[in-house]
């Protein structure tokens, strides 16, 4: 142990050369650390600051933009816990609350798709558990390169199997999500996972270490060399020297991939929930990015004193780990609990019952220092807040790339060849239906358990997932997750709003009342002013739209550096909307449920084809401006569907989004197994494929009542046809049998990905 750098060594050797630049810290950041400590940091402290002040943990590039979500939030009386905790908490009535959050695992999923996606699910589930909630469902939003590109099959197969493998083994129903393909994601797929949990108001837990003398208990998996430095740029030769304390025999072997252990997570969840139920903890925090560094400094900083940790007590997978490795390890399936001394035995007994490894590693102290020892030597002695809360904040340069954007916005698709004849229109519907972008997601969703826990009321392929919150209640929640990188590429401000509008509309179409938002902002490098402009625009757009829709952002995640070489992905804000439903028996499916019902199109259709699925699928064209954002119309539409659904005046609702009315009709027919005959007004091509927002189709036995309701709320309503038969017929144009549509829709993904 002689070559471990300690606080006393730091005092003796104040000018030791330290590899802070290699660890991703800037000169002035290093100076600030020296100032905070009043001396040079130890190697272990340096590593801690470097991970805690990394982009991933400190949000240093995004913080100034994310502030607008919290500072001027929309009026809502549902928020119990807002931004800043592990996940936001929303009151849903009956003394119940719901917590939900979406998070990215993009980069690990490119390296090892199965494990990257699996551990992504594991991480977000622990965030929800940390709030004191029982996780009740997951969702996933995925983006890959072109479906036919050489590497796409490896990524799709691995990611889908990994999401399923982990979530299924945890016993969490997967209730929805999305899959997209676009060449911009070829070298950088997006894997965003959402988890939602339910708790009683009084069960809320917070990530804080309070009460001097309280014990710090580490629960779950052994700590290995996983993901050390994964959150910053620590994988440098110099860092290896630092890790090995200079004297160790060569650089240690560090895994490049983390393997998930869902079984360990499952017993950890059940064990923690029993511990919460018994009232045995005063604070709890999951271990995610930056591992123990983050969990100890955050809980200490949010508590009322300091903390002392004996790092050598941490149970290790590999005995030869250094203190720095133990502190920054990102091994999965671990939690940190703060426990009153009199409750420690009870906690350990419950852990024994579930077979969860549990170890007291430290205690809450008076004062305001985080002190970490290693076999009696002090290796860290720092103010926890300086690590957790006082990281650097950057106002990164922002610059709209005028030439590129002006050219892009000018390149409208007005001159693209459009289908004109009945046959051309028919073909276009079939081509769109069969395209990887729009075809059935069954090949994916069949790999996910949607039944476990017994509360799933709607799941794929419906617009949103709906889950009943308790066996003895009719109350439920609806969740949708949406993003559209093409719209955001054309206009990031509108793109973020359109993603929100679509998720909101999806939730509304189940009959639920949209309440709150979570977001995962996937962008390129923040050091590129053009990317930072996209980010600034997207956050500004999202904040404004949330105010207009009355749905606060409760939390989320930022993923930067999504790019291949210098080329960034399409900016992709992925937005989750949560809604509530008083009576889940009234939920509206997305498919037709009976023949001889009137089909009504709600909302107004303009000629809006730039950025549309039609332009992309049939011409690989992206240019012009995205469809108009119509937030007040979205609100009115949601109100009409909610009221009509509650009054049982409509039997289904399906939103219009990618692929417009054509794809909405195809899906409504295929989901319900019931055909439709419709008559189109005006240009049939525009009617079928325009992607004007704030629209939905509904079916009803009582069209009159619906028209009245729509009229009162200023929602345009148009009777377009009738359900029934075994084909989709467009009067005067074409007819396609459901079996032909089904073949087109269902065969694409299996034939691509087997």
């Amino acid at each position, binding site marked *: 142990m002689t070559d471990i750098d300690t606080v006393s060594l730091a005092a003796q050797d104040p000018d030791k050369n330290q590899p802070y630049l290699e660890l991703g810290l800037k000169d002035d950041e290093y100076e600030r650390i020296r100032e905070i400590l009043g001396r040079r940091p130890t190697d272990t402290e340096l590593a801690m600051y470097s991970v805690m002040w990394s982009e991933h943990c400190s949000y240093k590039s995004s913080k100034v933009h994310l502030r607008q979500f919290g500072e001027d939030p929309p009026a809502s009386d549902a928020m119990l816990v807002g931004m800043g905790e592990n996940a936001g908490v929303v009151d849903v009535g009956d003394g119940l609350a719901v917590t939900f959050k979406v998070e990215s695992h993009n980069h690990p999923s490119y390296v090892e798709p199965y494990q990257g996606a699996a551990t992504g699910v594991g991480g977000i589930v622990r965030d929800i558990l940390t709030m004191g909630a029982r996780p009740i469902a997951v969702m996933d939003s995925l983006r890959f390169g072109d479906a036919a590109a050489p590497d796409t099959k490896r990524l799709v197969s691995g990611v889908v*199997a990994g999401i399923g493998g982990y979530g299924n083994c945890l016993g969490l129903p997967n209730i929805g999500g999305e899959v997209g393909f676009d060449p911009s994601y070829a070298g950088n797929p997006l894997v965003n996972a959402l988890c939602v949990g339910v708790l009683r108001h009084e069960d809320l837990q917070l990530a804080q270490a309070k009460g001097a003398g309280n014990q710090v208990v580490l629960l779950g998996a052994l700590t290995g060399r996983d993901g050390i430095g994964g959150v910053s740029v620590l994988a440098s030769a110099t860092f290896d020297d630092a890790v090995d304390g200079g004297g160790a025999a060569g650089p240690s072997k560090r895994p490049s991939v983390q393997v998930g252990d869902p079984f360990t997570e*499952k017993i950890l969840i059940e064990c923690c929930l029993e511990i919460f139920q018994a009232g045995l903890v005063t604070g709890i925090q999951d271990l995610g990015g930056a591992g123990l560094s983050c969990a100890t400094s955050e809980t200490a900083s949010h508590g009322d004193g300091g903390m002392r940790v004996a790092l050598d007590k941490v149970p290790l997978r590999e005995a030869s780990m250094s203190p720095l490795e133990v502190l920054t390890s990102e091994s999965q399936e671990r939690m940190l609990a703060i426990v009153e001394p009199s409750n420690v035995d009870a906690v350990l007994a419950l852990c024994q019952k579930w077979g969860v490894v549990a170890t007291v590693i430290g205690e809450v102290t008076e004062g305001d220092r985080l002190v970490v020892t290693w076999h009696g030597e002090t290796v860290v002695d720092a103010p926890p807040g300086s690590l957790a809360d006082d990281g650097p904040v950057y106002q990164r340069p922002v610059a709209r790339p005028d030439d590129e954007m002006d050219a892009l916005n000018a390149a409208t698709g007005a001159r693209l060849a459009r289908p004109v004849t009945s046959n051309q229109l028919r073909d276009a519907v079939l081509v769109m239906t069969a395209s990887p972008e729009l075809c059935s997601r069954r090949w994916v969703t069949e790999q996910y358990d949607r039944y*476990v826990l017994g509360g799933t009321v709607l799941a794929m392929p419906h617009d949103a997932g709906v889950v009943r919150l308790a066996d003895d209640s009719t109350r439920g929640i609806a969740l949708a997750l949406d993003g559209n990188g093409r719209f955001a590429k054309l206009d990031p401000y509108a793109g973020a709003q359109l993603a929100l509008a679509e998720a909101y509309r999806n939730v509304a179409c189940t009959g639920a009342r949209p309440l709150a938002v979570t977001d995962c902002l996937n962008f390129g490098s923040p050091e590129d002013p053009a990317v930072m402009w996209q980010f600034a625009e997207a956050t500004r757009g999202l904040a404004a739209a949330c105010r207009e829709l009355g749905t606060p952002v409760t939390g989320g995640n930022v993923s930067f550096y999504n790019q291949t070489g210098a080329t960034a992905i399409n900016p992709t804000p992925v937005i989750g909307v949560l809604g509530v439903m008083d009576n889940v028996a009234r939920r509206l499916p997305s498919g037709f449920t009976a023949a001889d019902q009137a089909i009504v199109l709600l909302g107004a259709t303009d000629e809006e084809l730039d950025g549309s699925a039609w332009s992309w699928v049939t011409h690989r064209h992206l240019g012009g401006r995205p469809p108009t954002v119509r937030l007040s119309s979205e609100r009115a539409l949601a109100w009409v569907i909610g009221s009509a659904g509650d009054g049982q005046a409509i039997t289904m609702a399906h939103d219009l989004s990618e692929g417009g009315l054509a794809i909405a009709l195809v899906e409504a027919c295929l989901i319900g197994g019931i055909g439709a005959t419709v008559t189109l007004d005006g240009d049939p091509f525009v009617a079928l494929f325009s992607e004007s927002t704030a629209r939905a189709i509904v079916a009803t036995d009582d069209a009159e009542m619906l028209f009245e309701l729509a009229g009162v709320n200023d929602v345009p309503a148009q009777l377009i046809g009738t359900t029934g038969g075994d084909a989709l017929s467009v009067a005067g144009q074409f007819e396609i049998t459901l079996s032909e549509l089904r073949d087109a829709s269902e065969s694409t993904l299996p034939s691509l990905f087997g």
Partner: protein
Amino acid sequence: MATTPRIGVVTFPGSLDDRDAARAVRAAGAEAVPLWHGDAELRGVDAVVLPGGFSYGDYLRAGAIARFSPVVNEIVSAASRGLPVLGICNGFQVLCESGLLPGALIRNAGLHFVCRDQRLRVESVTTRWTSDYDEGAEIVIPVKHGEGRYVADQATVDALEADGRVAVRYLDNPNGATNDIAGIRNESGNVVGLMPHPEHAIDPLTGPSTDGLTMFGSVLGALVSA
């Protein structure tokens, strides 16, 4: 009327559908009694359900470790004395591993986990768990598994078929199971194992049908009249 029948639902570390099985038991009108894997004790229950899930993560083989648990020991000996036992999915795998039922369940032919609403035919109604179905009834119950492909040596399969010990059969085989076998029974009909999840077909709100409820009702009928 006799006292409410009590049906045990076992929880192993990694059991997932145990709450759901208990819900189905209650929906059928019985009391659900939780049984813990580590207790060598059946708490005087009238029947036992081994629920679905991934016991011990199922990393080695589905059900391989769970079958050594103290509670399974008790179940094996009670089953030989006629206790009705239903193994669902992972529970079926445990029953095969423990030798209460023959054969094994291996990786699905398509190598993917499969979750779908599955059409089935009830082949044997002379079991404690299927007596309320009509013979040959076609039902819809979800399947959701990655290792559900039933296999056994030819002699075993022949014997199952000859003795009418195939309990339920797939109408469109999701996993490549031999002879479309979805579930089997033991000779005396008190032990049934199947891959589909009847506990997820008890309420049209949360499942594709209510066909699964009949399975839990069947055993109750037998218990109440006994």
